[in-house]
């Protein structure tokens, strides 16, 4: 069990700064997910923690002990690689035993640990097989087993589900969550899939271009994204963004003009009249108005999934909107619809993309 602290960690490859000034406290026993688009530095950050790579500057501590210059093997961590990195010429049993033999552990202890991991992961029937004779899901379990037998202070998982098919990914995700519950170990999990992040994480670290954009629980990130990037990255389908302008402020309220789509009254924000802002609304928070009013938009595509209907639409000033509506809707492409949203679910961002004050609940779209 361990807490991991990163202080001012940076990593450059030549001129390219892959990670910049990362400060992060990973709490004992939590499952923390690093999420971000390809190339955001999340895997590099994991490798720095693992000790497979060294930071250019800054320090890494595990349980208060500075391990910045400590070899990977001496950090007490175990890693599950994206490719699983199982030794192809060894049986599953030999794969699990390999690291323990390095530590010159007694044979009986090794056998006991393998038996325990095999039971926990249900891989006992394959112990004498080689990785090439296993399915993707089985290999994945062996890779996790190899980490478990070492009884590490923390688990590092690098996109462990990315090589599995969709169905297996969902079931394995649930198993990983159960495993974390059971082992109560610190787990650092890297993924580019925000759904994996939302479902697994105690806390999520959103990374972009080598910097931390926001750290928080999944719902904090969903409900109060710190900036446009996080707002767009967390939540599926992606949040709708509409450009707007502060028309004026009075009585503690601000009026926002939404191009040709109408105006809104929101709780006063720290922005002057004339400032450009971006208004964010999640597709699930849009409702269809039977008659006029709200934001008018022309439907471009209807995806009827049975339990819900996804509408792709375009506002008069050619902003695209996505609405996810419950049930089945009698709407056809080409029709003009009117959408409204509960102001309590709206997000407002200033011209530099940072979150503005929360919107007031009792004002609606006009």
């Amino acid at each position, binding site marked *: 069990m361990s807490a991991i602290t990163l202080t001012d960690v940076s990593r450059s490859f030549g001129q390219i700064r892959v990670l910049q000034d990362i400060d992060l406290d990973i709490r004992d026993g939590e499952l923390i997910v690093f999420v971000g688009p390809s190339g955001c530095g999340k895997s590099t950050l994991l490798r720095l923690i693992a000790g*497979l790579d060294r930071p250019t500057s800054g320090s890494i501590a595990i349980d208060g002990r500075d391990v910045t210059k400590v070899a*990977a093997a001496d950090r007490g961590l175990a890693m599950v690689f994206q490719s699983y*990195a*199982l030794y192809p*010429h060894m049986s599953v049993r030999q794969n699990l035993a*390999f*690291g323990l033999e390095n530590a010159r552990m007694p044979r009986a202890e090794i056998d006991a640990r393998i038996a325990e991991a095999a039971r926990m992961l249900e891989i006992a029937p394959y112990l004498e097989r080689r990785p*090439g004779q296993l399915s993707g899901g089985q290999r994945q379990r062996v890779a996790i087993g*190899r980490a478990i037998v070492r009884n590490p202070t923390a688990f590092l998982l690098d996109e462990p589900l990315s090589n599995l098919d969709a169905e297996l990914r969902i079931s394995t995700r649930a198993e990983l969550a159960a495993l974390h519950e059971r082992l109560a170990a610190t787990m650092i999990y890297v993924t580019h899939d925000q759904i994996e992040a939302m479902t697994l994480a105690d806390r999520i670290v959103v990374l972009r271009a080598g910097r931390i954009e926001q750290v928080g629980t999944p719902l904090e990130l969903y409900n109060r994204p710190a900036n446009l990037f996080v707002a767009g990255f967390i939540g599926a389908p992606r949040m709708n963004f509409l450009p707007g302008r502060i028309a004026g402020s009075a009585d503690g309220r601000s009026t926002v003009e939404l191009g040709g789509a109408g105006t809104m009254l929101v709780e006063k924000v720290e922005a002057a009249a004339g400032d450009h802002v971006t208004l964010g609304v999640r597709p699930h928070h849009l409702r269809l108005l039977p008659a006029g009013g709200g934001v008018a938009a022309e439907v471009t595509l209807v995806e009827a999934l049975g339990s819900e209907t996804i509408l792709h639409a375009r506002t008069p000033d050619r902003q695209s909107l996505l609405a996810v509506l419950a049930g089945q809707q009698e709407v056809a492409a080409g029709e003009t619809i009117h959408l409204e949203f509960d102001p309590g679910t709206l997000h407002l961002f200033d011209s530099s993309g940072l979150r503005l004050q929360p919107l007031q609940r009792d004002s609606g779209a006009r």
Partner: protein
Amino acid sequence: MANAAVGLAARAGAIILAPVGWLARVLDPPLRLMQKAGGQNGMVAFFLAPNMLIFGIFVLFPLVINIAYSMTGGSALFLEDRVFVGADQYRRLFTCGNYLDPGSCAEDLFWTAVWNTSTFVVFQVALMIGVALVTALVLNRDIRARSFWRAVFFFPVLLSPVVVGLIWRWILQREGLLNYMLHGIGLDPVVWLVERDWAFMAAIGVSVWAHVGFYALILLAGLQAIPKDLYEAAEMDGTRPARVFRRITLPLLAPNLLVVLVLTLIRAVQIFDEVYVLTGGGPGTSTLFITQYIYEVGFASLLRNPGLASAASILMGSVLVILTLAQLGIARKNEMRSKKG
């Protein structure tokens, strides 16, 4: 800019390829006619014919003739002038008081060559694989100017064997470069190519130098095919370097090592050109190998005996066939294993 360059390259390509197009247009009608007449299988035979003809004239025919020669006697060159002697030539090669003592054999030079070649094969193959493996391991590391070093080790492979022999004779001869340098630092010169053991070692060393780049390249390809992840997993597992080499690198390199083993074995049994130029088989018979024996008995000596040379070459060929079959078997096994993945 880039677009213009691409356009220019495309135009240049079109100009260069234009004659190919004309040729195709000229050849097309007769080929179509032939295919109509002969069918698809007929076309296969037609396209294979030139190569089969060359193979037949230069490989298959000499092989058959060679077997015929090995059963004839005398020094006449043409087969129709030669006397049929059955297995006499083979009997002569195998007439021996004690095979380990060439002096007791009817064809003492043959057995000298056989034992010289055997000794050469054992030491040369061991040294070759060892040096190739070390070279590949070093070249696989993140060293400075890696491409340059790779070229340096591969370069001798491009040289003609005669050039290799001449270069090293120039270095090792009595008044050669090496002795000049030894003299320069105040050491007594050594007559490298005149002392039996030194000459034998020189033959091994020079042939290793000339070919090691090729085998190092095969091993290097094998090393690069091993996923980096495995080494990182081993690092996380706290594996010591020697154990990483023994338990991960060597087993995963085994298929390539086997290929290299068989290829070096075949090449070592055939050893001739660079050593012939370097030592001429001497001093005495200390670097006389089988191929040189065959060449001298069949063509170069005053008392030439083509029948005996043919018989010896058939024997050597049999050994090579066995080694080649072993190599094919290994290659097929590797292929099946990689398919099973």
